[in-house]
């Protein structure tokens, strides 16, 4: 691949290294190259534009590393799959880079290296990216996994050199599409040819997805014995153990942390240790999470809340309150911060026996959550504080609102379940959440049935009420838009119809631009809209 004309982003905290690598990139033909010093600047650049390639040093200073940055930008969809990501590392960092789990760099390069080697590696990655482009095309924000899967078979036939990469993508897609038997067959056929870590872990994931947890765990344990540096195996095994044996899960996370430190795993360890009532270990883990990352990019409210809770449970009230205060130092002022701080403080004061202070903090948290549309995690933290103070009805009301707003989001529902479980109400919570979810499904089904039966005004009233209340519920917003458009089609379109439909379409798109039926509704809008109707803005 000719590197001339490609655009690059170079990330390194050391000025001399930046200059040296930039010259090497220019030698390789890459004239158009931005260079930045740290995570913050990298995020700004990657948000503003798309690059053909990113060259990033592993050590970024301030307790941040290139692997954390890669995970951050991949999770937040700031780095398209078509962009090459090359990690540069010294020999000490190499061990951590080479273990990368869910988000691995496309390649890594050990310092020192020549311009020729840099050019060879980059052009190799870009060749691969080009070959896999037909698949990546359907894996982005507006992608369709079924089309991506079809593209896998096409690329597999036309580009045998990249068979392994395609099979890996295909396995992930099959698992994501819940086509478990096909995924299992794929991994088994790879493993018949040769042993390789990704297929061993993929097979275990497929087994777990078909309910064979014990077989999956055994497979992962064997994989770890053979591939002690393969973090994906630790992550999968810890995830499975978490369901049945949290002490064993904690041990696996501890082992993974020995292989490679990461703020995310320290947080996971802290949370497991809290649940296992291993408070000193939890304190240590959260402290590391809070202290290591001096950029603030990888920290969460949970790290400070967890630190406060683990101190408080050991009777260290002053340290716990200091953690609550530190939370305020490290995050900018917002209703989210205020709610988290107050909810955490309520727990600490309660544990210390300061009932009045606990009540006051809880009132603050409740007041904030009434006024602001809080993130589900934040609202659930307030609910947890309510349960701790015995205010169960208020807790349930908050959880119900969260669950209705996110009834299709398994992750949020699982978090809600763990709030019930922490309050010792696990089975009651499970029934409560299931009932809420069913009610939402019924609301949507009833409204759609009414619309189909021609009772469009009733359907619109019902869905519009729900969509105005549940602003994070994609399904409700899409059905509301659909019902309004059907009403327009039947009763004759007015500008008000399109204004309302557009509002619900944008509401849905803001929550989840990938939502399966969104495209269909947008097409319907465009079909019905007479000339002069406001168009749907591009994203």
């Amino acid at each position: 691949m000719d590197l001339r004309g490609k655009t690059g982003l170079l990330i390194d905290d050391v000025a001399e290294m930046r200059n040296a690598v930039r010259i090497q990139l220019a030698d390789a033909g890459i004239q158009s190259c931005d260079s930045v010093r740290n995570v913050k600047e990298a995020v700004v650049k990657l948000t503003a534009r798309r690059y053909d390639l990113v060259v990033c040093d592993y050590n970024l200073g301030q307790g941040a590393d290139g692997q954390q940055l890669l995970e951050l930008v991949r999770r937040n969809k700031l780095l398209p799959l078509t962009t090459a990501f090359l990690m540069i590392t010294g020999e000490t960092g190499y061990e951590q880079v080479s273990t990368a789990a869910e988000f691995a760099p496309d390649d890594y390069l050990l310092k020192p290296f020549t311009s020729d080697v840099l050019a060879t590696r980059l052009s190799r990655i870009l060749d691969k990216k080009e070959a896999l482009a037909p698949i990546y095309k359907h894996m982005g924000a507006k992608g369709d996994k079924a089309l991506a899967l079809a593209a896998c078979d096409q690329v597999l036939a036309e580009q045998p050199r990249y068979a392994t990469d395609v099979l890996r993508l295909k396995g992930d897609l099959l698992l994501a599409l819940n086509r478990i038997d096909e995924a299992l067959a794929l991994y088994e056929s790879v493993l018949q040819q040769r042993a390789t870590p990704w297929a061993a872990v993929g097979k275990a994931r497929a087994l777990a997805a078909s309910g064979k947890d014990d077989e999956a765990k055994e497979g992962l344990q064997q994989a770890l014995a053979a591939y002690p540096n393969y973090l994906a195996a630790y992550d999968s095994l810890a995830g499975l153990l978490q369901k049945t044996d949290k002490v064993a899960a904690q041990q696996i996370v501890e082992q993974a942390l020995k292989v490679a430190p990461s703020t995310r795993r320290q947080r996971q360890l802290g949370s497991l240790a809290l649940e296992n009532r291993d408070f000193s270990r939890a304190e240590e883990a959260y402290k590391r999470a809070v202290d290591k990352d001096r950029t603030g990019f990888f920290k969460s409210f949970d790290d400070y809340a967890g630190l406060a809770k683990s101190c408080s449970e050991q009777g260290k009230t002053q340290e716990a309150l200091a953690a609550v205060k530190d939370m305020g130092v490290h995050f900018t002022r917002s209703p989210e911060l205020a709610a988290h701080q107050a909810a955490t403080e309520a727990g600490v004061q309660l544990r210390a026996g300061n009932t009045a202070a606990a009540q006051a903090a809880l009132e603050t948290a409740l007041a904030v959550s009434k006024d602001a549309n809080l993130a589900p995690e934040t609202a659930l933290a307030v609910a947890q504080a309510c349960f701790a103070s015995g205010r169960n009805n208020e807790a349930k009301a908050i959880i119900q609102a969260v669950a209705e707003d996110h009834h299709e989001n398994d992750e949020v529902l699982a978090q809600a379940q763990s709030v019930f479980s922490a309050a010792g109400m696990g089975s009651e919570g499970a029934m409560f959440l299931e009932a809420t979810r069913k009610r939402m499904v019924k609301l949507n089904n009833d409204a759609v049935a009414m619309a189909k039966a021609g009772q469009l005004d009733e359907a619109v009233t019902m869905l519009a009420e729900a969509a105005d209340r549940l602003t994070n519920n994609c399904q409700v917003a899409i059905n509301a838009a659909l019902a309004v458009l059907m009403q327009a089609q039947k009763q004759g379109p007015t500008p008000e119809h399109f204004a309302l439909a557009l509002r619900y379409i944008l509401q849905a798109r803001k929550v989840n631009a990938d939502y399966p039926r969104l495209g269909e509704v947008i097409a319907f809008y465009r079909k019905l809209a007479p000339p002069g109707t406001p168009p749907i803005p591009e994203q």
Partner: protein
Amino acid sequence: MDHLIAAAIHDAKNSLSSLGVWLDKARGEHDSAALHHAADLAARVNAQLVELLALHRAGEGSLRLAIADHNLADFLADLQTELPPGAERVLQVANADSLGEWAFDAYLVKFVLLDALRNALRHAHARVKLSAVIEVGHLHFRIEDDGPGFPAAVLQGEQGVMSTHSSGLGLSFARIIAERHATPDGRHGRIELHNDSGARFCLVLP
């Protein structure tokens, strides 16, 4: 004490890496055969330190291989950029384009093969052959030369007698790295040494 050893090796490696940068700079300004040899020597000492560090870690139970898929043709191409001066006149590398990928620790295996190649190049009359072959579920990296062959003591597996130029570090390292390549079903790698029409070194990976 143990971490001091590892830290000292790391320090030495960092110094060597700086030395490498200076030597590159010097060669950029005025290249000479002497500088070329100096750079090669620095690379050799670096390789020995890598081996020493791996053995040290194996001893204290903290050596963990990073096994991942690597394209064999690309791997062999990269390996050839790190050979000692003059190697290209003697070395033949078999085409590996059709072999696809294999899972191994490319960093450590590279040092195993570079060490074996240096050894072969030192003893060969005129020819060294490097090839990769996949046979019954194993990958074989073979290095064959047309020299006098391994001494009997080496073939019998005695430690510390690789050759008069070597402490035997390289072979101990190769054995450990081979052995640590394992599969979930419990297979391990190995080193095979033969004398045929010269010495034949083979790294077999499961």
